[in-house]
């Protein structure tokens, strides 16, 4: 067996353990044969460790052989040769994907071990781990995707598992409504991603990143698009990335995501999921080079999100929300770095930030307890932090900034007022007209069974 074959096998084995984990946990949930907690813990640890070992082995072989770009072919999933339509399943191990996949395994493994104890005897224990396995598979597939369709597959799995985990405590309405809100943002972002994928497919004849980026290994590839094409595709992908990474104007969902259990908040919104948009921009970074306008848009969006995150994080009243906005600040800076073309710095920034934020979020539940202990020890309250608003701003301005930050830029309110409410009102009106029409045709009431009560789609902030 030569080195190439070894790499091919190791590459496949990186993806297979998460798939097995999802399959086993999913089937046991569907057929109502839940595994006990110890088995779930061992299975999760085993799958994560074996995947991590294979990823580390791929890294080792790449370092030894000096190989910088290892494609792993699964062949055509769907092909219509007469129409030149290929749906290609392919993984890529390069300087971007290998660190990201190792980071994913390490953090997800840590969170898995933490959650196994944190959710001990919790009624939704099995449900959590099914979503956890779906998230792991989605992250790994997205990290090592070699085609835009494969990346979309992982992207969608991450989105679904995130929404379901935000709604984990589903006996209360707020987590569920927040989960639905996040799913809504993700669907809009996914729509942009899908259009970008299809446009890319049309422009390059395939969804393969190699075809898109030229033959050079990341980050040296040169995109085979014109400036105009790069701008269109890039803006669609930036839109998708903004939705996934909670950049402006989609930042409103990030604090809502903290409704989920702490382990999922940590791994999804502090560490991995929130960086997936930045990862997408890094993966398609050769496109950014082709269009100055696109790069400038990325920088502006990143810096605006960072500024907004910094302002909001300083005035939030609970630890997890403050950490969520602190994450947004860093993700905004990472996005700006990508826009400036600092790809390695952005990658290192992602890794460092993800590890730090995971630690902080896992620590958050016990932080209050520690604060109380310290206050008891010193016999006084701990000093309060300042909001960080400069003193030279007039008091009215300070209040406005404070209110704006505390209300999270009124983003959700604006979304509700200008998009959700008109949309619902228009279709409710159509529904009423239909009812009049069917009443007329029937010659009497046509909806005896349908409920006529009003319903509120948006909840107050948690």
């Amino acid at each position, binding site marked *: 067996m030569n080195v190439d074959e070894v790499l091919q096998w190791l590459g496949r084995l990186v993806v297979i353990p998460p798939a097995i984990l999802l399959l086993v946990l999913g089937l046991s*949930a*569907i*057929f*109502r044969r839940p595994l006990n907690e110890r088995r779930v813990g061992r299975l999760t640890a085993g799958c994560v460790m074996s995947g991590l070992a294979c990823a580390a082995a791929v890294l080792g072989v790449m370092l030894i052989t000096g190989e910088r770009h290892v494609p792993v072919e699964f062949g*055509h*999933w*769907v*092909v*219509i040769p*007469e*129409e*030149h*339509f290929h*749906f290609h399943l392919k993984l890529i191990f390069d300087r971007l994907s290998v660190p990201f996949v190792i980071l994913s395994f390490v953090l997800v493994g840590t969170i898995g071990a933490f959650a196994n104890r944190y959710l001990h005897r919790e*009624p939704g224990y099995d449900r959590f781990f099914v979503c956890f396995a779906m998230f792991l598979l989605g992250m790994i597939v997205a990290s090592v995707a070699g085609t835009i*369709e494969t990346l*979309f*597959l992982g992207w*969608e*799995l991450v989105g*679904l598992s995130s*929404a379901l985990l935000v*709604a984990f405590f*589903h*006996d209360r309405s707020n987590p*569920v409504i927040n*989960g*639905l809100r996040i*799913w809504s943002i993700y*669907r809009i972002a*996914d*729509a942009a991603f*899908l*259009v970008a994928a*299809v*446009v890319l*497919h*049309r*422009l390059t*004849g395939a969804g393969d990143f190699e075809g898109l980026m030229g033959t050079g290994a990341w980050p040296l590839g040169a995109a085979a698009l014109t400036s105009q094409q790069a701008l269109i595709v890039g803006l669609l992908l930036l839109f998708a990335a903004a939705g996934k990474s909670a950049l402006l104007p989609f930042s409103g969902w990030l604090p809502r995501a903290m409704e989920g259990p702490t382990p999922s908040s940590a791994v999804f919104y502090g560490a991995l999921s929130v960086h997936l948009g930045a990862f997408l921009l890094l993966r398609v970074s050769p496109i950014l080079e082709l269009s100055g306008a696109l790069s400038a848009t990325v920088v502006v969006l990143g810096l605006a999100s960072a500024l907004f995150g910094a302002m909001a994080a300083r005035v939030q009243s609970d630890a997890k929300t403050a950490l969520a906005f602190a994450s947004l600040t860093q993700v905004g800076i990472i996005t700006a770095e990508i826009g400036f073309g600092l790809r390695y710095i952005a990658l290192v920034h992602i890794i460092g930030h993800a590890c730090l934020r995971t630690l902080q979020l896992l620590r958050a539940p016990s932080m209050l307890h520690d604060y109380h202990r310290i206050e008891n020890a010193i016999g006084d309250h701990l000093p309060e932090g300042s909001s960080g608003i400069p003193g030279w701003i007039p008091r009215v301005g300070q209040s406005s900034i404070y209110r704006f930050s505390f209300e999270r830029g009124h983003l959700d309110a604006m979304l509700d007022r200008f998009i959700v409410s008109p*949309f*619902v009102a228009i*279709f409710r009106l*159509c*529904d009423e007209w*239909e009812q009049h029409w*069917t009443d007329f*045709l*029937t*010659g009497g009431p*046509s*909806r*005896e*069974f*349908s*409920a*006529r*009560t*009003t*319903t509120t789609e948006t909840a107050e902030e948690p």
Partner: protein
Amino acid sequence: MSELHLPWLEAMVVLPLLGAVVIRLTRHSDAAWRRGVVFSGLTLLAAIGAWQEFNFLHVPEAHSRFDVLSRVFQSDVLFIDELSAPLLPLTALLYLLVILATMRTKIRHFSISRALCSEAIVLATFLCHSAWGVIGCLIAGTIPLWFELRRRGQPTRIFVIHMGVFSILLVAGQSLVQSTDPGSVMSVVGICLLTIAALTRSGIVPAHCWISDLFERASFGMSLLFVTPLVGAFAVMRLVLPIAPTWILEVIAIASLITAVYAAGMALVQRDTRRFFCYLFLSHASLVLIGIELTTPIGMTGALCTWIAVGLSLTGLGLTLRSVEARTGRLPLDRFHGLYDHVPALAALFLLTGLASIGFPGTLGFVGAELLVEGTVRASPAISTVVVITGALNGLAIMRVYFRIFTGTRHVTSIDISSRSRERLAVTILALLIIGGGLFPQPGVESRYHAAVQLAELRQQRGLGIQQAPNKNGLENAANVTTHGPRRIDAPRRHSARPEHKS
């Protein structure tokens, strides 16, 4: 035309009819259910047999050597082709699963004999060779539903008005098409009438209210079986597509596009699960029609793949809602019902089937949705964007209803309402098909591509507009050549459109 060696086609029509008679004579409801399962199962076996033998023959179409009626009418009555071959087992499976998943307490409200009658008519519709045969079956297919509404004591005016108009337009349109010269004004008028009839049956806006009314008044099972085989789309493909000039197809595509978005928006604001399902179905059915009207092989392949995916996934979704309704009664969507702990398997199936219908990766619908978007991008990026937005809205509607039904404060009940073995079996079969088809989509896509090519070539032979496949790098669309000169639908097909390399 090639011949099938066994009388599969006749069996598909006769078995359910025989079953309907036997069940009509059965007094005990459990025995009726068991016989219903047996007869619909045998029909499914016959449909699978026909499909497999047809695949084995490697011909564009085949008829049965035992076709007695052909001797009477001096022409083939029943036949199977690339388009109908997989639709037959799909339809038979849908009927089997609906009958199988019927709870014992609900057998009195769901007439199995009527369902089997309806199955025979739908299968006969797919098998009919002549246009008049298809029209006769389409009209006959409305009768069991009318009886259903009458038996339940529900007003039938909306159903009768729409189906009456549908039937009259079909007969008038086909009469005009058949009696006038192809390409004449009256022939085009005839095609327009056929188009309006097919769109009415498909529930295209504004002729869609009968479907929501049907779900409101008929049993969920019968409503489901009346709409999910997508007989309206089949009418478009058999009666309109082969003879319609391109501008009519463009009108259908625009109407379908409007319906897809409108129905997706309406599904999001519904306060009743049945109405939600109705609009969700309408949106998906319209997406299928959009793909068909593109007349590009890739777009039609996407539409035909989506057809199969929508049939299976929305039947699964409907079965889940029906099972939940069987426990709690009609479900308003203005509150959370908290049913997850009682029926977790149904909750999982709801998500699986719902996500499959919107083309979630790894499910049966994914490749169909991808091909459909690819086909629409080649035709027009604007249409593609609308199709993608429709998918996003449908995804929101599905998740909203999932949360409304299965989450919230735990539903309190004094009786066991967990899912029963017959429901779990139906659920498992559907889940396996949805995931299996999603993981191994190539055979299905190949088969649907051949059907799309056959349809496209049929239009080409008749000198009608067809958009060619793009050139090598996939960047350009070939010219859309449009001429007028429709020929009769039952004119003999001259050569095989099926590529030789079929695996």
